[in-house]
């Protein structure tokens, strides 16, 4: 699992060091924003979600009893806030997933276009699985859904992505066997 921040900063923040809390928030901010952007697909909404996530870190960091639990705790917060912002946006009928975040990297543009075709549920597990290299059990814990549901969604997402990314060779997307080996 990815490390959001240096362990010593996390420890100091957990111990109630106010300066360390703000240092921690600053350290996790880029990761929070990019994760939110990856699953929401909108810079402005991602900024809203990431700011709210960081505010929760700022406010509730002392409630984390164990520094080892911090990474999962923060993943959960960012994903929850992203889902909340996304739902609100969908209710307003303005749900769109950007097909680019700027730049002219063709491969990157392909990735965002592909993700744009996935439903939010499939996109969440895809991002966490492929971009964050999380195990399916960890994803289940973060998203609060059954392990089997994660696996099903991963399989669906993969089927969808393979059909869309024709330009990619087989090894671009992992095979079903690879997915199974990874999620088990």
């Amino acid at each position: 699992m990815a490390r959001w921040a240096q362990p010593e900063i996390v420890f100091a923040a957990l111990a109630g060091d106010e300066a360390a809390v703000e240092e921690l928030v600053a350290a996790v901010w880029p990761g929070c924003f990019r994760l939110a952007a990856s699953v929401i697909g909108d810079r402005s909404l991602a900024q809203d979600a990431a700011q709210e996530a960081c505010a929760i870190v700022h406010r509730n960091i002392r409630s984390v009893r164990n520094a080892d639990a911090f990474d999962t705790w923060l993943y959960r917060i960012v994903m929850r806030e992203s889902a909340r912002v996304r739902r609100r946006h969908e209710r307003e009928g303005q749900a769109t997933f950007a097909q680019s975040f700027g730049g002219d990297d063709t491969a990157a543009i392909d990735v965002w276009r592909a993700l744009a075709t996935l439903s939010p549920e499939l996109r969440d597990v895809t991002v966490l699985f492929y971009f964050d290299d999380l195990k399916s059990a960890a994803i289940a814990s973060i998203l609060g859904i059954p392990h089997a549901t994660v696996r099903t969604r991963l399989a669906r997402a993969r089927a969808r992505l393979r059909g869309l990314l024709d330009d990619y060779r087989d090894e671009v997307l992992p095979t079903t066997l690879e997915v199974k080996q990874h999620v088990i």
Partner: protein
Amino acid sequence: MSSDFSLTGRSAREQIPVPTLSMDSIRKRSHAAQTRARLRTFVTAAAVSLVVVGAGVGVGAKIYDGVHVWFSGNKVATVVHSLVFMRNPMASDLRTAIAHATFPVVFPAGIPAGTRVNRVMLAPLDRPSAITISYTNPGGFNTTVVLLDPAVVDANAVQVPGGSMRSPRTFSHWRVGGEIVVAGGEISAGDLNQIKAATSVASASESLAATEAMLPDIIVLGGTVRLEIAERLRPANGRSVLIDELNVRSIARLVKDRKPILDTRFSYADKIGNMNARIVKAVVIRKPDVVAIPADGVRAIDAVLNSSGERASRDRCGCEILFNQPNPSAYRIWKIPLSAASTVQTYSVDARTFAVTASTVSHTQR
């Protein structure tokens, strides 16, 4: 896994430009989150006692002085417009709170031995016509009982308002003198019969005395787990305060900011709005402003935590702290370890120099 798609995806994500972080914005949102957390406390408090009816379904129903309750069979619903939520109230708090009740309060009697009262909620704020008492007992008697002024109750409603309103639990309710008692369905039949019988013959003063015996006799802040030990240790003179581990972890920050520990036990909410059986908004009023431990007392605690000389010990003492100021020139502080195997350490701190003297007497936790 390390597939091309993973690598490409990570690379694509790393290319997303990150906007500048505004720490001021984070601080403001953090403050707003704190307010929302308080509101959630009220929601929880209401949920454990009664089902809250949506404002929409209450249209046309008369609101009796800020509280209205409907019974229909074993279903119950209520509208509450304001409330005060008290965590770990002391006897004086309870007496003050019920002094203005709209009905003669008889507290439940016959409560199993060893039970403590850890929360009391009164509604509405100024003249309570609904009093919710939450009990906790290691033996399993963990329940909430509600006392109601009969004047705010529709006892024979054909249907609770809204039709779709449903309680997740069943309730028992009965009348005792000038009040209606509502008890959750989780109480065993034996306990319920005992409470009914004992309450029916108890006087108001007897039931109050019995309830006061279940209240802490020191100020308890946070989710402490060493209350009984602290109650045995507390001196007869001076005000004693017990703080939990989370509060202990905030000591260094408070000392740095020269701030006291505030008495956060009471929360007040007004203008509560309900929708779809949930409290959806409320105005939190009377933010905590009563000092539980003054800034110098906080400094004395910090001196004790520092006396071991290890930063780790100061930041994570794995303990709760009992604080007492017997006279203006000294503080007495007890470090009560969370581990039952450890011993309680007693300290005296000079109120002027903050010099720490470890007591020669220590207490085993029994």
